[in-house]
């Protein structure tokens, strides 16, 4: 039992912190956000140079083969800087699926360009009306000769319009109503396909999200893909989807911890400098206790983020799901509490767009709406 980082990891952490401080200040971030893609390709290239984009991939595919500790550090730094780039969608989620399900040729073709920052691949898994249930798939995959035709809709695909390729879940057999999402092994008939974002029949509605990122709703209308597009076994993709969604959820927890750290620091700074009634408002006991609670929430969330990350590699799927859900619930609720408290402590300015803290509060709140909110995961935890 050892919660400490080794020297190499500490160095990695410091270099990330330096990068965020130097290149990801509030005004710079605003500028990246205003770019057509809603993030900076320069930053993305720098991430590649730092090895971040291949962090978890095998070395043979241009990755660093890093483990859970590095993932925690990277995602926490992303939270610290409120990073806009599609790290979660591309490296953790799409990269994770390819690493897990891809055959040798697919890994060779996809992972190195992702690691090099040359290609952006994202996952398109959730559907309108399915809420957070990734097993409720109504997008159809129908064989037509040697090819497959995909039809359906995917909802709130992070960075969908900025991606070169999409990994799309579709139903190659069965129907979605007979699935119980808590029996992973029994869910059958879902497959994954690689689809070019520009392919015929793909239409993309690009939009901003309320926390400053980009997402898209994507319609697939008789989109033809070849046999090489199939990622993993036909009809047997759900276990991988479930595992990658958990990896994404754990990564979001780590990101949330980073957001909490910075938001708490900004709030403390405000409490120490803002004067009312002739004193810094941080002298008021009620505000002190609120700040103490924010600190407690962040520390407990950090513990849960660590625990969830550790369980990702567990062979006990039920245990992994239970702990990831527990972490997502805890982080979701703590995030809500911290963001609300921070806004309140900032007073009037806390609800304007001009304050960095307002942007952190928004992201922290909206993280909960990705890959299952607290209520969703509480239910999954109960039924685990």
């Amino acid at each position, binding site marked *: 039992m050892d919660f400490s980082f080794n020297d190499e990891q500490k160095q990695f952490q410091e270099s990330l912190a330096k990068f965020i401080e130097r290149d990801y200040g509030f005004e710079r971030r605003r500028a990246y956000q205003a770019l057509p893609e809603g993030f900076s390709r320069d930053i993305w290239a720098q991430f590649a140079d730092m090895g971040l984009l291949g962090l978890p991939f095998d070395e043979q595919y241009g990755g660093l083969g890093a483990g859970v500790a590095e993932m925690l550090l990277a995602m926490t730094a992303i939270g610290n800087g409120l990073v806009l780039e599609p790290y979660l969608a591309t490296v953790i989620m799409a990269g994770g699926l390819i690493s897990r399900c891809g055959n040798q040729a697919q890994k060779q073709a996809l992972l190195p360009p992702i690691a090099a920052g040359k290609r952006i691949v994202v996952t398109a898994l*959730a559907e*309108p*009306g399915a*809420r*957070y*249930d990734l097993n*409720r798939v109504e997008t159809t995959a129908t064989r037509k000769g040697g090819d497959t035709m995909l039809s359906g809709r995917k*909802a*709130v695909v992070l960075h969908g319009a900025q991606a070169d390729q999409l990994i799309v879940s579709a139903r190659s057999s069965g129907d979605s*109503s007979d699935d119980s*999402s808590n029996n992973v092994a029994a869910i059958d008939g879902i497959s994954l396909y690689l689809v070019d974002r520009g392919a015929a029949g793909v239409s993309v*509605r690009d*939009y*901003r*999200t*309320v*926390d400053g990122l980009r*997402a898209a*709703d994507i319609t697939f209308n008789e989109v033809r893909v070849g046999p090489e597009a199939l990622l993993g076994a036909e009809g047997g993709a759900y276990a991988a989807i479930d595992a990658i969604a958990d990896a994404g959820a754990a990564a979001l927890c780590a990101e949330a911890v980073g957001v909490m750290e910075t938001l708490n620091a900004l709030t403390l700074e405000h409490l120490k400098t803002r*004067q*009312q*009634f*002739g004193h810094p408002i941080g002298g*008021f006991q*009620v*505000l002190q206790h609120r700040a103490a609670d924010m600190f407690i929430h962040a520390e407990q969330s950090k513990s849960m983020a660590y625990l969830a990350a550790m369980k990702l590699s567990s062979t006990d799927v039920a245990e992994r799901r239970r702990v990831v859900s527990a972490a997502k619930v805890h982080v979701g609720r703590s995030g809500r509490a911290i963001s*609300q408290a921070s*806004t*309140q402590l900032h*007073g*009037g300015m*806390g*609800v*304007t*767009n*001009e304050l960095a803290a*307002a942007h952190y*509060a*928004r992201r922290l*709140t*909206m993280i909960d*709406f*990705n890959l299952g*909110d607290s*209520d*969703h995961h*509480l*239910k999954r935890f109960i039924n685990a």
Partner: protein
Amino acid sequence: MDLSYTADEQAFRDEVRAFARASLPPELARKVFDHRRLARSDYVCWQDILAKKGWLTGHWPRAFGGLGWTPVQLHIFDEETAAAGAPRLVPFGINMVAPVLMAFGGEWQQQHYLGRMRENKDWWCQGYSEPGAGSDLASLKTRAEAHGDHFIVNGHKTWTTLAQHADMIFCLVRTSTGARKQEGISFLLIDMHSPGVTVRPLIMIDEEHEINDVYFDNVKVPVANLVGEEGKGWTYAKYLLGFERTNIAGVGASKRELATLKTIAAQEQRGGQSLARDPHFAARLAQVEIDLMALETTVMRVLSQRGKTPGPEASILKIRGSEIQQALTELMMEAVGPYALPFVPEAIAGEGTAAVGPDYASPLAARYFAWRKTTIYGGSNEIQRNIIAQAVLGL
């Protein structure tokens, strides 16, 4: 003790309901129900309709051209118009500065300004907060120097709601620097069209332009626009705060929002069943509904027992009212799940761009964030709890 409405009150309710149904433009009501952004003309339109009927100032005493509605009537009016989808009335004139003018204003001020308010001629805003003076209102710095028949005003107000639409602002200004900072504050009415007044938008967390910085650069204000006595502004401001807190309970609007939330929950699905039937969500919704019942009853209790001048108990209404409003925005945002994420301002503005996901979903997250203001403005809830502890409980 009789907690049911009298026949007269019931008749009044029927009358308000019928009138709202007949006169409120349906497209305006739709915007309100769907949480779309309202333009200046939307507010003005409805207030003109009410002014023509005499109902914009129905709660004013007859001596000032009102209809002398009882507090219960005013509550019924608020509830029925909110339920019909009417926009909220801009309160700064008719509900905030008006009572001050009635109590402390000169005859000309009463005739001129109250008269124009009855006819919805001016849009008023409130010049209280300053960058260095939020909850600590009395430390304000905006100065007004007397020069013969006018004052010269210099300073910077912030957090001024809808100042971009306003014709008039009532301001707390410093006319002398006394021993206590509460002394030397005066209450001034300023024409927003005067030279030297600049309005700069403060963009809200939901990218809405609702609040503003207002700068005064050597603005000339006639002495006739000084309310009451010079240096007594703090007294008037405290008098006004009580009125602000009563209206802030917002029971009528919260009842409408609760109904909207139920509609949304009935349409959303979780795990293959309606969200409204999800036990956990239903329990949270029920809790807010019960809290709102308690608040409404408390409002009626305060109003019917004490008449029109609200005491420090009004702090309860502010605290619970704002907490319930926030809980409703929070549940609504959660109800739509991942479709809380898309942010399409054009759709929120109702400018013809389609929303992403269900139509009702698009404004909800932005609205949740914006509504965090309700526990901050009008005297933050921390200040309100201080008031209860000190003024009510004697701590």
